[in-house]
């Protein structure tokens, strides 16, 4: 069967989870009803790895998005995760090698209280929220994803960044045993990303631990990843093991790979094209037509002030 049976739900559990499991049953049934054996044979198990456990969270109105969400199957089987493969369909098949427990994050640099935090403690400390965000890949496709997580700012504050903390740098785990494609050199591992401190502290910037109400599947960046919805997807670094407060602008992995094509900011901007393709329009996964790409991916109201007076053609 394509999708594993959900664990039994006790009647005492809250509605939120129940609703999501119904969705899953519906998916199962519709697949069983014969969307066609052809597709079923093609698609990897969307739940490869340890994802899929139900999470408890609130659903703040501020982060409801009144548009159709991208299908769970698409969100979890079409992933750019070069640590597994450069093919977008492969991570869902290969991600079972990633072990998401035990997992800790080292926080260091320009802060008063550096340290190592365990993922379980992170989960206990922060109340989870569901936030439905648009997600725009630099390649020209987009999705709408219901993430579960908490504002990065909540987490960063606990380490008391100093006035010298002008930027925050993030790093993905390096372990070729768990990330088979790290045996090759397609990118300069570890994968690194960075934000300016005010970007990191913006309430939109999310640390995600789940999607569709469930623990993140490995291929989506388990156990914890960044989601910066007004920037191109590659800024939203996955499977984070290190956070560092720094004084100077860090160089991201994609800047190192091609500084002409990928800048530090990488804000979604229909007016600034990638050297090899236009960013004016995008294809929403699940649609045949094209949509206009929105300035800051539709989050201008929340983030445009961060870039006031900046030449966005220059600081792309």
């Amino acid at each position: 069967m394509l999708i594993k049976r959900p664990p039994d739900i006790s009647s005492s559990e809250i509605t939120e989870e129940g609703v999501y499991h119904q969705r899953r049953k519906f998916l199962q049934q519709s697949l069983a009803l014969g969307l066609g054996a052809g597709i079923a044979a093609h698609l990897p198990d969307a739940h490869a790895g340890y994802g899929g456990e139900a999470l408890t969270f609130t659903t703040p109105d501020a982060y409801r998005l009144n548009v159709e969400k991208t299908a769970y199957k698409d969100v979890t089987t079409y992933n750019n995760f070069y640590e597994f493969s450069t093919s977008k369909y492969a991570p869902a098949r290969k991600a079972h090698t990633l072990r998401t427990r035990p997992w800790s994050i080292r926080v260091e640099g320009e802060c008063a209280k550096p340290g190592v935090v365990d993922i379980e403690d992170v989960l206990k400390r922060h109340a989870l929220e569901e936030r439905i965000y648009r997600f725009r890949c630099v390649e020209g496709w987009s999705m709408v994803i219901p993430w579960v997580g908490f504002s990065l700012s909540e987490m960063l504050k606990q380490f008391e960044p100093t006035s010298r903390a002008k930027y925050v740098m993030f790093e993905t785990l390096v372990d070729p045993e768990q990330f088979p494609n790290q045996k090759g050199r397609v990118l300069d591992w570890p994968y690194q990303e960075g934000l300016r401190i005010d970007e990191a502290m913006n309430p939109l910037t999310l640390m995600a631990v789940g999607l569709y109400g469930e623990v993140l599947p490995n291929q989506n960046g388990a156990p914890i990843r960044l989601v910066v919805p007004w920037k191109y997807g590659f800024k939203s670094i996955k499977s984070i093991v290190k956070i560092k407060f720094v004084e100077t602008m860090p160089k991201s992995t994609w800047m190192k790979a091609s500084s002409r094509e990928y800048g530090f900011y990488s804000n979604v901007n229909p007016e600034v094209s990638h050297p090899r393709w236009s960013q004016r329009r995008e294809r929403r996964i699940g649609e045949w037509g094209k949509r206009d790409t929105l300035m800051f991916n539709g989050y201008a109201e929340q983030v445009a002030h961060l870039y006031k007076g900046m030449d966005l053609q220059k600081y792309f």
Partner: protein
Amino acid sequence: MSPKGVGYLKVVIFCLSLFPAANLLQGALSNALGTNPVETLIRDTGDWALRFLLIGLALTPLRNLTGQAQLMRFRRMLGLFAFFYAFIHLSIYIGLDKYLYWDDILEDIIKRPFITIGMLAFLCLVPLAVTSTNGMIRRLGGRRWQKLHKSVYFIAIAGVIHFMMLVKKDLTEPLLYAFVLLLLLLARVPSIKRVTQRTAKA
């Protein structure tokens, strides 16, 4: 092989060459082309255009190696299939990937070298397809026809460069095509060609 045998084999190769297109069509109709079907369609048809170009270019060195002159009887059909897949590839780019937004297409052609070079390769492929009939060969005369069709080397090189320039980071696949093309071009260097022909005779 008898002329009849060549005829039968042509039918078989024709059907086999149509198979990737049929497979994609079936996939498109049954929604089995993955999460981003347009991307799948455009990549796969591009792959097949390049593959048919390389297969077509492989016939002459293969003939030199094996001495099987009849291999050349399949060259026109394979070349036309390269054109067929390149044509679908371009049509999908214009119709589905760019969704007929001509401003985007024009900007691509002018400002994006990998599109410019891909488009150029396709444009050069058109006269080869048009002059592929026996009538056209006669009208042009063998020498002029051959001269014109030498541009297939440029088209193949341009096609491979087009592929190399479009990938984001992983060059493995395009480099594989580049390597095969390089071998096929090297096999045409006179001194190397003499060696292969001698081996064939020995």
